[in-house]
Every structure is written in C-alpha cells, then in structure tokens.
C-alpha cells in the first residue's frame, strides 16, 4: 500500500530538480498566504460577490489584466532561464529535457496566456466605454470566457509541478508530440489547457463582434467608430474564424494520443505535416489577432497626443479589415521547407508580401498624424514612438523571410527568432503597454508614475535591441532555434559566444524593466496622481466623457453621437458656449451576477485534469458538471434587473461631486 502511494507520487509530482522543489514550496506558501489574508480580513464574501460572480466587463477586464501580468512574469522567468543557459558554451545550468520544457512553456504562455488575456483585458476595459454602451452584448458569456481562460491557464501551469511540463515546442508538432515520442502527460496538459481557454477566446470573439455591430451609441455609424473599436472588430473576426481550426487540430492530436487514432502518426497512413498545415491556419491569423488591437491603440494614442484627428481614417479601417481577411491566406510560409510544389510556395510568398502593404499604410498614417501636431510625450506616446522603428525593422525582416528560396536559409534559425520577437515585443507588447498606460487612469482612477515609467520604457527598449539584434547575426552564423547548448569550438572559433552573451545581458535588462514596472504600479497605487476629471489626457472618444473609474452602468445617459472624436466635439461645443440639452435619467437595464460561469469552468478544469491523466472517473463527472451548469443557465429566467433613477442620481452625485 505505502509502496504504491510512493510510486504514484513519484510519477504524479515532478521530482528530482531543486528548481521544481523551490517552486513547490513557493506555490504552497503563496496559496497559504492568500487563504490567510482572505480569511483574516474577512474578504471571502467580497471576493465571491464582487469578483468571482461578476458580469461587469470592467471588473472582468481587471481580472484579465492581473492574470496576464502574472503570466508575463512566468513566461519572462522562462526566457531568462533560457538566456542564462545559452550565455556561454557548455553551460550546465539546465538539462536538455528541462530546456525543452522551458522553451515550450515560454512560447505557449507568452502567446496564449499572456498576449491573449492582456488583449482581452483591453477589449473589456475599453470597448463598451468607447461605444457608449452599458456592457458587452453577452455579459454572462463574457464572465464565462474569463473563467475558462483562467482555468485553462491554471491547468497548463500545473504541469510544472504535477506530471511534467510539455516539451515538444510551443506548437507541439507531431510526431514528437505523439504518444510514441512523448509518453508523459505534458502534451495532454498542453492540449487541455489550450483547449479550455480556447473555448473562452472563441466566445470572447463572438461577444465583441456582436457588441461592436449592435451596441454602438445612437448615431455612431460604423465609419464614425473609434479606431481601437475597429481594430477589435478586425481581431474578433479573425478569432471566430481561426480558433475553431485550433480546437479541431488539438482535438485530433488528442485522439491520436488517447484512443490511438492515426491522423498525425508516422504509421498506418497518418501524416504529421497535416498537423503543421492545420495549426498554422490558426497560427498565422493568431499573430494578427494579437497585433491588430495594438495598431488600434497606437491610432488612439497618436491622435490624442498630437491633438489631431487621425490621418487617413478610412484607409486605416480598410487596411485593418484587409489584413484580417488576407491573414487567412498566408499560412504556408511557416513551412516553405516542407517540400510542397513550387506553385504553393510562390502563392504564399506573394500573399505574405502583400499583407505588408496595408501595414505600411498604417505606419505612414501614424507619421502623418503626428506631422504638424501639437505633440506631448507622455508614457503612452513614448511606447508608440518606441514601437514604430522596432516594428518597421521587424516587418522588413519578415518580408525577407517571405522570400521562399531565401527562407531555406533562415528557416528555424535565430534569424527567425529575432524576427518574431521583434514584431511581437515591438508590436504587441509595446502596443499593449501603450494601451495599459493610456487607459489605466480610466480603469483605476489614478495615473502611473511618469518618471518610473520612463525608466522602464528605456530599459525595455535598450534591453530589447541588445537582446535581439545579435540574434539576427547568430541566425546567419548558423545557430538554430531550440538548441540547448553549444560547444566551445562554435562558441569561440565561430564567435557565437560573445553574441549570445550580449543577448543574455539584454534579456536581463528587460527583466529589470519589468521589475521597475511592478515597482511603478505599487508606487502609483500609493502616490500616483489621482484623476478627478475623468479626462486626464484631454481625450477625444466617449470613454473620457465619464468619471474614472466608471460607474457600474458606465453611462447614466446613453450619449448620442454625431461624428468621429465625439467627446472632442462636445468639448469644442462647450468652449463655444453651446450647452448640452438637459437630460432625463431613466431606469437602466442591467444583467445580474451569476456563479454559473465560475462553477462551469471549475467543472471544465476537473474534466480536463481527468483527461490529462486518462482518469475517466474524474473526466466524466467533470463533463456532466459542465452539462448541468449549461442546463441550469438555460432554466434561469431571472437574469436581469433595473437600476432605479434615484440610485443613478446618488451614484453620479458621489462620482462627479454634484448632481447631474
């Protein structure tokens, strides 16, 4: 009996590495600390009522933000571990298999559990406010999306201490990820973690598409909509078409592993390249899914801080929508070297170069918006200015990679690594940081400290170039990705070692930049400049017309809009002495909180965990729980209520310090 338990424990828990034991201890201590704090301050009820069961898009956005920053930390630590291992030849810091697990989780976490939720955070925090709406189209579904994402992310992260991490690369290519070559449960964690959070992402895509199409304030025609909302529309369109492909691809991989199907195996007719083909049909649109909202953020920021309407609004809209469709026609450039026919490679090389054109249009539009504008350089603008050169270089190396014959040279080298980090950090991360600094006062009611922000900006930027510029050269020198170490001959004679060392230094500078940001946030919570006006940047769009933080119903009166930059026009009218017509408050229709999304996601977590270990006694009750939750929702008819006028009056009076 005791022997059995010991046997089980030694395979169930990850053992044998001091790093892991350290993680075990810190996870345990953190959990105990959280439980203690919640109990000591009697916050359980508050947590349940105000956060876990909430359907308020602003609170959901804040939860997304916190989760994504935690994931940024985890993914960042992975990156630093890798860079430490590669700093010098023949390093013994990480074992080969551990290194494999680290680069796998780094990629997966950064894209799916950091970039996606940070993006959804901004969707949730901003879009309804920009559109003059009281909430998203489906608040219940919105809450479900968040909890599914969180449970998926937790399941994925659990693999670090239980069962073993996935180690077949961030896209888990077969045949390596098949049962024959990855017999552990790591790949199952990968599949179910992404699968569960993927359902949530898909639901968010539907939710925001309908919100934007149908919930705009009266008078806000599509072509009068703020550009960030347009970018969310473009991104949502890609989500709803791309994520089903991912769901199917991972489900098929799981069938291969779980019931012995032969989709992607090497024997009995399976074809691993079919997986590569399918996963990139999702994977390519995915990179545009995360970068397009960043473009939307830059458009808002550039316009606000140049005090001008955006240059070329129509071409901005057109290029974003064009990118969202064309992004579905470029996927094969990720596997030019597969050996497909020349016609295939030519088609996808050209389509890849074509998609660079609308992106270039946008860059020029931002530059022309700044031209002769009255520019003030605050943090959001700083990140935007840092983005432009970085993204232009990243885009140019992308066009180099698009040249199919040349790609045979660059494929899977550090040149590629440098390229996609340049567009993902320079584009996505800088973009979301710009958005975070820009909308932070709206969400929390105070600004983030400028001085510390400038420090972190410069550290990020300098660290980035120091880290990734040498990697372009390393790629040309023959260093391939996923290499866990290199000998002293290549290291010193071929000159890999100095460049790797520089690169590692850059990575740690970025790590330092992140710490400065954490310090900046905690400093600003205490001493940050409070935003009492609701309009700290002299903004142009509707979210700045309401107090910060916004009341739970957002707008006491739904605004009527006449053109783009609606709030700017209202302010101009006020200056010219045109007073707004008196408004009459009406009761507001609001959705009720619900525990079902949380319960259902926990059931998914249980089911997922059961499937990971092949424990049907656990998986089936989990799925039954999911079904019961859905039916319980279907039978719930008491889902909304009205906020009465006197409550609105009281809330507005408290927020604005006067009666409306």
């Amino acid at each position, binding site marked *: 009996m005791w022997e059995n338990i010991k046997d089980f424990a030694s395979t169930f828990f990850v053992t044998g590495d001091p790093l892991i034991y350290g993680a075990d201890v810190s996870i345990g201590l953190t959990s105990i600390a959280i439980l203690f704090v919640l109990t000591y301050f009697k916050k359980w009820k508050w947590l349940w009522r105000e956060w876990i069961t909430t359907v308020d898009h602003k609170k959901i956005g804040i939860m997304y933000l916190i989760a994504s920053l935690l994931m940024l930390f985890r993914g960042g630590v992975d990156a630093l571990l890798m860079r430490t291992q590669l700093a010098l030849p023949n390093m013994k810091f990480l074992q080969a298999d551990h290194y494999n697990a680290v680069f796998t989780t780094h990629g997966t976490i950064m894209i799916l559990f950091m970039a996606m939720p940070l993006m959804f955070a901004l969707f949730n925090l901003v879009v309804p406010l920009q559109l003059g709406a009281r909430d998203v189209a489906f608040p219940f579904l919105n809450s479900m999306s968040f909890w599914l994402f969180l449970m998926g992310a937790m399941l994925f992260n659990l693999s670090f201490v239980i069962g073993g991490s996935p180690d077949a690369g961030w896209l888990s290519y077969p045949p390596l990820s098949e049962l024959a070559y990855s017999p552990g449960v790591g790949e199952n964690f990968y599949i179910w973690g992404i699968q569960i959070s993927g359902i949530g992402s898909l639901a968010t895509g539907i939710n925001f*598409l309908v919100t934007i*199409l*149908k*919930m*705009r304030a*009266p008078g806000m025609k599509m072509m009068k909509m703020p550009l960030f909302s347009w970018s969310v529309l473009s991104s949502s*369109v890609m989500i*709803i*078409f791309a994520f089903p*492909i991912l769901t199917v691809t991972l489900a098929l991989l799981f069938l291969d592993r779980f019931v012995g199907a032969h989709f992607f195996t090497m024997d009995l007719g399976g*074809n691993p*390249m*079919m997986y590569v*083909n*399918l996963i990139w*049909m999702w994977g390519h649109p995915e990179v545009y899914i995360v970068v397009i909202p960043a473009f939307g953020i830059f458009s808002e920021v550039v316009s606000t801080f140049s005090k001008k309407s955006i240059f070329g609004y129509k071409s901005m809209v057109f290029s974003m929508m064009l990118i969202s*469709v064309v992004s*579905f*026609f470029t*996927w*094969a450039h990720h596997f030019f070297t*597969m*050996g*497909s*026919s020349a016609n*295939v490679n030519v088609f996808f090389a050209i389509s890849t170069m074509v998609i660079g054109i609308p992106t270039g249009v946008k860059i020029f539009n931002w530059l022309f918006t700044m031209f002769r504008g009255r520019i003030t350089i605050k943090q959001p603008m700083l990140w935007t200015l840092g983005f432009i050169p970085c993204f232009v270089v990243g885009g140019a190396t992308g066009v180099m990679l698009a040249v199919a014959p040349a790609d045979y040279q660059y494929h899977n080298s550090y040149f590629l690594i440098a390229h996609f980090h340049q567009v993902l950090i320079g584009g996505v991360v800088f973009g979301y940081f710009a958005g975070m600094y820009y909308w932070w006062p709206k969400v929390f009611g105070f600004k983030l400290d400028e001085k510390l922000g400038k420090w972190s900006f410069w550290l990020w930027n300098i660290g980035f170039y120091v880290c990734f510029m040498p990697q372009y050269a390393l790629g040309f020198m023959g260093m391939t990705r996923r290499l866990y170490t290199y000998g002293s001959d290549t290291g010193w004679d071929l000159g890999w070692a100095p460049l790797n060392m520089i690169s590692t230094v850059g990575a740690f500078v970025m790590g330092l930049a992140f710490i400065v940001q954490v310090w900046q946030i905690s400093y600003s919570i205490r001493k940050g400049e409070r935003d009492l006006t609701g309009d700290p940047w002299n903004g142009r769009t509707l979210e700045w017309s309401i107090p910060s933080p916004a009341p739970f119903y957002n707008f006491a009166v739904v605004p009527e809009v006449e053109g783009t930059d609606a709030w700017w026009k209202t302010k101009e009218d006020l200056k010219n002495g045109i007073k707004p017509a008196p408004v009459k408050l009406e009761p507001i229709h609001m959705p009720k909180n619900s525990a079902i999304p949380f319960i259902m996601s926990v059931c998914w977590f249980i089911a997922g965990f059961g499937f990971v270990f092949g424990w049907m006694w656990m998986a089936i009750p989990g799925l039954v729980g999911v079904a019961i939750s859905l039916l319980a929702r279907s039978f719930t008819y008491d889902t909304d209520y009205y906020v009465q006028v006197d409550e609105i009056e009281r809330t507005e009076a408290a927020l604005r310090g006067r009666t409306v």
Partner: protein
Amino acid sequence: MSQHTHGHSTTDEVSQGHGSLKSYLLGFIFSIVLTIIPLVIVMNDMLNKTQTVVTLMLMAVMQLLVQLFFFMHIREGEKPRWNVMTLIVGLLIVFTVVGGSIWIMSFNSTVQ
C-alpha cells in the same frame, strides 16, 4: 442598436412572416429531390468521375441554399445583414481551409 432600423425591421418581419407552410413544404420537396438526383446518379454509375463529382457538389450546394432560404429565412431580419456577411466570409474561409489543405498536402503524392 439603432432604433430606426430596428423599428423598420419589425414591420418588415410582420409583413413577410416567418415563412409559411407553403415555403416549408416547397423547401422539403426541393431537398428530397436534390437528395434523390445524386443518389440515382451514383448508384447507377451514370456519369464519369469528374462529372459525378461536379454534379454531387452542385446538388449539395443547392441543398445548402434551399435550407438557407426556405428553412432558415436568411432573407429576413434586420439590415444591415451582418448574418449574411459573416456567413459569406465564413464560407470563404472554409473553402480556403479545405481547398488549401488539399493543394498543399498534394506534395505527398509527388514527393514520396
């Protein structure tokens, strides 16, 4: 949620109704006929391979249209017709996924 278009569409819906018995019956008859034709063609080997494939796909697409127009009432509803637009883009992507996969994966038969 523009109120004007919404008000307009409600009257529209009332005048058009939600399909009549006649339209459902017509749709049903069409779908039966469109199922029998390919069945007869295949079971009796009436056409050569390419012709059969083309006819079969044509019949299936017509079935899709029958279901869309007679059963799902795609013509009804509010303007602008976001449902039709998303459907068209969705079908374009499906076509790309299926056609693209077949095209790209045909390397299997040429390389080996």
